[in-house]
């Protein structure tokens, strides 16, 4: 639909719901009598009655002529707007019309009201109706008798929970969250290796329940997992219970309302819950990574619905995980890690860093299997109370990692297959002491509520070139 042409002369846009519009009705009558006036009404077709109005029922005139306030008085010459004034200001109306003595009984000034065409509840639909679509995705009609939510389950587009139907209005609103063009290719999504556009990511974000301001984080997460280094294909195909763990850092986490405190890894925060979910829905629906197909996980884990949380960079005495990967302080970033669900490490009695390091090292050694070493990375997410024990002793990130690594070596003979009457282990014949982790295989983050002497261990998957390497990216808005 093109832009409706306004009749030459004077045009006014009003709505009954606006007190100022009702106030200026005597002026409209005065102008209608001489020199003539076209009145468009946004709500009640019978308002103002005298003079009669044209009902802008679909708000097309208001939308196309960018009416933000009612009343708006417009002067049109040869089909082109040459002047406008909004609200009621006698001097402005008199100047625009060239007529003196307008509304002698009215006050000199009354501010206008918001136009229906900019009503936040309507604007997304109006943009779709009047704006001309810029979206490429195939349109799918849902029958009158069909339930939207059930239809999406039936088509296999959900993770087992209901999804928000991605209407064009919702997707357009979602795209407001980024400056990137809808048709920009973001990544090639495994396992089907499908090029995905910003638009398709926005669709997944709508379905997951994201707000538009989360979209840059979702886009960055998609870029971070869809590459050979992170190896999303392998994460799907493995029988281990891993999936992308998204750790968000920077002041932007607070701007979008992410939770890095009480229950940071749990339920109840929209951003935490939906950013990770959007990524998983995208991998499922665009990439074709579905359980029982390419996804061969023996057990999986609940985090495969989406596992995303924010670091508490204000409570962390040792900086952020993103900082460990070279991101400057104050820069919004995400780190993706091939990990499983978090495991709690309890130590409520250690008050010295040595004692706490000993505790943490015991649990870290046991990760996956105490006799399996070097092959898996981990993120240790300390709660603020554990982190404080180290901070008060003056241990920084490097010191904590050094002390943990130094407690995480074991004679190869004790780890060998068959040692300790356990068949599992490293190949027989290795010599010396073996570290649990590679030098970069243990990472630190800080999150959680202020009370609780606990840390969370997020165990990883096959690391390095033969598996997955963590990827950190600055968020691109």
């Amino acid at each position, binding site marked *: 639909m093109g832009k409706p042409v306004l009749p030459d002369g004077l045009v006014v846009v009003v709505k009954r719901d606006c007190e100022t519009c009702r106030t200026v009705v005597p002026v409209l009558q005065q102008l209608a009598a001489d020199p003539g006036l076209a009145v468009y009404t946004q709500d009640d077709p019978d308002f103002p009655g005298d003079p009669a109005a044209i009902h802008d029922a679909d708000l097309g005139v208001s939308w196309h002529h960018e009416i933000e306030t009612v009343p708006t008085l417009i002067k049109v010459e040869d089909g082109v707007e040459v002047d406008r004034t909004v609200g009621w200001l006698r001097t402005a109306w008199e100047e625009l019309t060239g007529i003196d003595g307008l509304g002698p009984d009215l006050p000199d000034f009354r501010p206008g009201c918001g136009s229906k065409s900019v009503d936040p509840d309507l604007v997304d639909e109006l943009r779709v109706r009047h704006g001309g679509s810029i*979206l490429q*995705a*195939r*349109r*799918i*009609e*849902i*029958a*009158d008798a069909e339930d*939207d939510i059930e239809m999406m389950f039936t088509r296999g*587009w959900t993770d087992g929970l209901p999804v928000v*139907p*991605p*209407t*064009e209005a919702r*997707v357009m609103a979602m795209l407001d969250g980024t400056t990137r063009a809808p048709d920009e290719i973001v990544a090639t*999504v495994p396992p*089907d290796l*499908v090029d*995905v556009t910003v*638009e*398709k990511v926005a*669709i*997944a974000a709508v*379905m997951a329940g994201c707000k538009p301001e989360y979209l840059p984080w979702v886009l960055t997460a998609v870029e971070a997992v869809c590459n*050979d280094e992170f*190896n999303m*294909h*392998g994460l799907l*195909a*493995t029988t281990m219970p891993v999936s992308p763990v998204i750790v968000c850092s920077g002041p932007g986490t607070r701007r979008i309302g992410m939770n890095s405190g009480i229950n940071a890894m749990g339920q109840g925060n929209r951003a935490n819950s939906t950013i990770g979910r959007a990524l998983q*829905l995208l991998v499922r*629906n*665009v*990439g*074709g990574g579905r359980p029982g197909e390419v996804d061969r996980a023996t057990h999986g884990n609940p985090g495969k619905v989406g596992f995303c949380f924010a670091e508490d960079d204000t409570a962390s005495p040792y900086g952020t995980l993103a900082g460990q990967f070279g991101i400057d302080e104050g820069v919004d970033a995400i780190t993706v890690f091939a990990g499983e669900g978090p495991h709690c490490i309890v130590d409520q009695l250690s008050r010295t860093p040595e004692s706490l390091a000993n505790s943490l090292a015991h649990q870290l050694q046991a990760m996956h299997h105490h006799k399996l070493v070097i092959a898996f990375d981990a993120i240790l997410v300390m709660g603020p109370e554990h982190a404080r024990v180290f901070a008060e002793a003056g241990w920084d990130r490097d010191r904590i990692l050094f002390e943990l690594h130094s407690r995480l070596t074991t004679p190869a003979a004790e780890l060998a297959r068959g040692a300790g009457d356990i068949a599992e282990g490293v190949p027989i014949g290795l010599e010396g002491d073996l570290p649990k982790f590679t030098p970069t295989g243990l990472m630190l983050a800080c999150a959680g509520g202020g009370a609780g002497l606990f840390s969370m261990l997020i165990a990883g998957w*096959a690391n390095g*070139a*033969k*598996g*997955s390497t963590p990827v950190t990216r600055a968020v691109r808005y």
Partner: protein
Amino acid sequence: MTRTILDPTGERTVAERARLARPASLDGLTVGLLDISKPRGDVFLDRLEERLAGVGANVKRYSKPTFTKPAPVDLRHEIATECHVVIEALAD
């Protein structure tokens, strides 16, 4: 009222290719054995190589750099051009 939503899938058109007919005999054919590099896959493939040699097949061995990633395109091309048949060993 009819509602319209946007397709969340990749909207790709799947190219389907028919498999080659199974050979009636492996005698004289080249059989590729692809080890995906999981532990003990070689045990399985060693035994297969013995059996295949016994029925007159020429055996060529290949291995993926890591079991966690798809076979590199060059390796796939190499196998396709050098072999009539391929057997891929999974693992553990």
